[in-house]
């Protein structure tokens, strides 16, 4: 069992961190070029040279392109109207159509940005050409914004995701194992034998849960080592602070596990309930989607989500190098949560049936 407990999360961390990315590559791109001019050819060349787009084919008509999108063989296509070059030169202005498959809304948004970027750059390029030809108007000074991404300058998704996924693994393993543990004793009958002994409630509970606390800390250690050496995630903050916080955080999860144990009779039921909570916690943790964009009621609910606090703190400490005073407001909430959760769990645990 022990190898499974460590190997599976490590695999998950390695696989998920590579898979959970918002970068969109290998977009299949198509075009309908009714103009066949050098201007339209240049634009298509821009797309072809982009690393995000794979050029698939030239469609002879709008209808063909539409069919291709319908059967999923192309993600995006542009449609260049007839007399594109001529109209552009005459009117200094023209339009092309960009058609994006928006089944996956967030991917479509990203594709839109990429495509617009290429078209805008190309636009600037031909604009300067035109200006050189006419040579009359002075080139307008354009205002450009230069984005600077703090704490994650290269906008590397792994830097962002690995700490979050690590939180997820520590939580999942400790919740599942602690939730099923006491139920297992109920199932195989050892709990009945234990209950007839003079052992104290707190002794039994600590004895049952302490190993999982150690396990959680062990998982964090393994995960941090992987994050550092495989994914090269920076660890700017104080590790001691991170461990200190995690030691309190795991108490919350263990209390929850024990609480689930007390209200279930079989490991199956315990597993089902633990799974139910984990899914809600993960989706509402801000790990994959920002909490700020959730509706108001959901934002209030996330206040009760321990994973949210840990995700936030691990990112703050590892990526920003936040110190104790920065995480204090979140940490104090976690501590309160730990006290309430364990209080409830111990209170609901009965030695009689």
């Amino acid at each position, binding site marked *: 069992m022990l190898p499974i407990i460590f190997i599976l999360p490590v695999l998950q961390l390695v696989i998920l961190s590579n898979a959970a990315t918002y970068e969109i590559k290998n977009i299949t791109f198509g075009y309908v070029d009714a103009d066949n001019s050098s201007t339209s050819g240049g634009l298509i060349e821009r797309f072809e040279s982009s690393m995000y787009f794979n050029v698939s084919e030239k469609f002879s008509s709008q209808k063909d392109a539409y069919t291709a999108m319908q059967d999923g063989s192309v993600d995006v296509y542009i449609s260049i109207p007839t007399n594109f070059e001529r109209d552009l030169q005459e009117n200094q202005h023209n339009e092309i159509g960009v058609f994006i498959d928006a089944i996956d809304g967030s991917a479509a948004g990203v594709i839109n940005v990429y495509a617009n970027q290429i078209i805008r750059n190309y636009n600037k390029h031909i604009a300067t050409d035109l200006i050189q030809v006419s040579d009359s108007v002075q080139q307008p000074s354009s205002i450009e914004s230069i984005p600077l991404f703090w704490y994650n300058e290269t906008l590397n998704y792994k830097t962002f995701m690995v700490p979050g996924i690590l939180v997820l693994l520590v939580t999942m393993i400790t919740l599942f194992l602690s939730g099923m543990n006491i139920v297992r004793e109920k199932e195989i009958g050892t709990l009945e*034998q234990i209950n007839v002994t*003079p052992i104290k409630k707190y002794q039994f509970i600590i004895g049952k849960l302490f190993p999982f606390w150690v396990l959680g800390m062990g998982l964090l250690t393994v995960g941090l080592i992987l994050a550092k050496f495989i994914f090269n995630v920076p660890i700017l903050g104080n590790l001691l602070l991170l461990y200190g916080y995690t030691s309190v955080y795991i108490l919350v999860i263990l209390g929850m596990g024990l609480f689930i144990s007390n209200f279930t009779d079989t490991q199956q039921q315990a597993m089902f309930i633990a799974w139910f909570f984990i899914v809600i916690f993960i989706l509402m943790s801000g790990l994959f989607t920002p909490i700020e964009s959730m509706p108001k009621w959901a934002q209030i609910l996330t206040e009760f989500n321990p994973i949210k606090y840990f995700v936030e703190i691990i990112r703050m400490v590892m990526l920003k190098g936040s110190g104790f005073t920065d995480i204090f407001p979140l940490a104090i909430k976690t501590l309160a949560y730990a006290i309430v959760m364990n209080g409830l769990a111990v209170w609901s645990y009965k030695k009689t049936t």
Partner: protein
Amino acid sequence: MGILVKNISKSYDKVTALSNISLDVKPGELFGLIGPDGAGKTTLFRILTTLLIADKGQATVAGFDVLSDYKSIRNSVGYMPGRFSLYQDLTVEENLNFFATIFGTTIAENYDLIKDIYVQIEPFKNRRAGKLSGGMKQKLALSCALIHKPKVLFLDEPTTGVDPVSRKEFWEMLKRLRQKGITILVSTPYMDEAALCDRIALIQGGKILEIDIPKAIVGHFPKPLYNISASNMYSLITSLTHYEHTYSVFPFGEFVHYTDKREAMNVEEIKSYLVQQGLTNIHIERTQPTIEDTFMELAK
């Protein structure tokens, strides 16, 4: 200082498990609770070992009340549940050590009490409990229940699922434990084991049918009992069931236990009836009733 049960009742939702049970086990007595599955034996055990709270009535174990003094009871009783409930992934020795530690004692301290039993499993002390045979598991469970020198020992169907040789050995162990002054309450569905107890209570459907020493219980059997055997067991039973004077017919090993409605029955008359029914090789003889016969009679 034995066990005192007064008007205990317990029901689960709509099912009545125990209704108004009273019994009294003397200190140092080997007391048997005899009844079929579902009679309420385990429920009574769970109430007496403070795992369950009765709806009504009082009970004391070793002089302690099951409600107000449950902590003292947990210190002074040994409980062996019907289902093997030691840690299967700990070894024999680890299990014993674990339970000794929980009770704040050591194996060495009470070794003489469990010695007789433990020597038999000692050769396997490094084997995991889950890998032991049924008889060994039961010896280990008994050792664990005895490790803290309990005043009262509760054994819930200890011999269910155990081979006949181990069963016999087990009852001999219980007799030796009784000599050491431990009060033992044991439940069993096997009627033949009942005769080995000092006193027994016959229990069915949550009610106690009778409490007495085994011999006296057998003496309560109301009618003369006959062993009948014939060539074909099945048609023997069906023939006797349809016989007009039959009071009771039960298969019992190679015989049928038969009682008659009439005060004075005629053996020859039955014989000729059976011959008439096409049976051959008929033997009829008077026999002594067993606890099983009494139980069947009382449970009617």
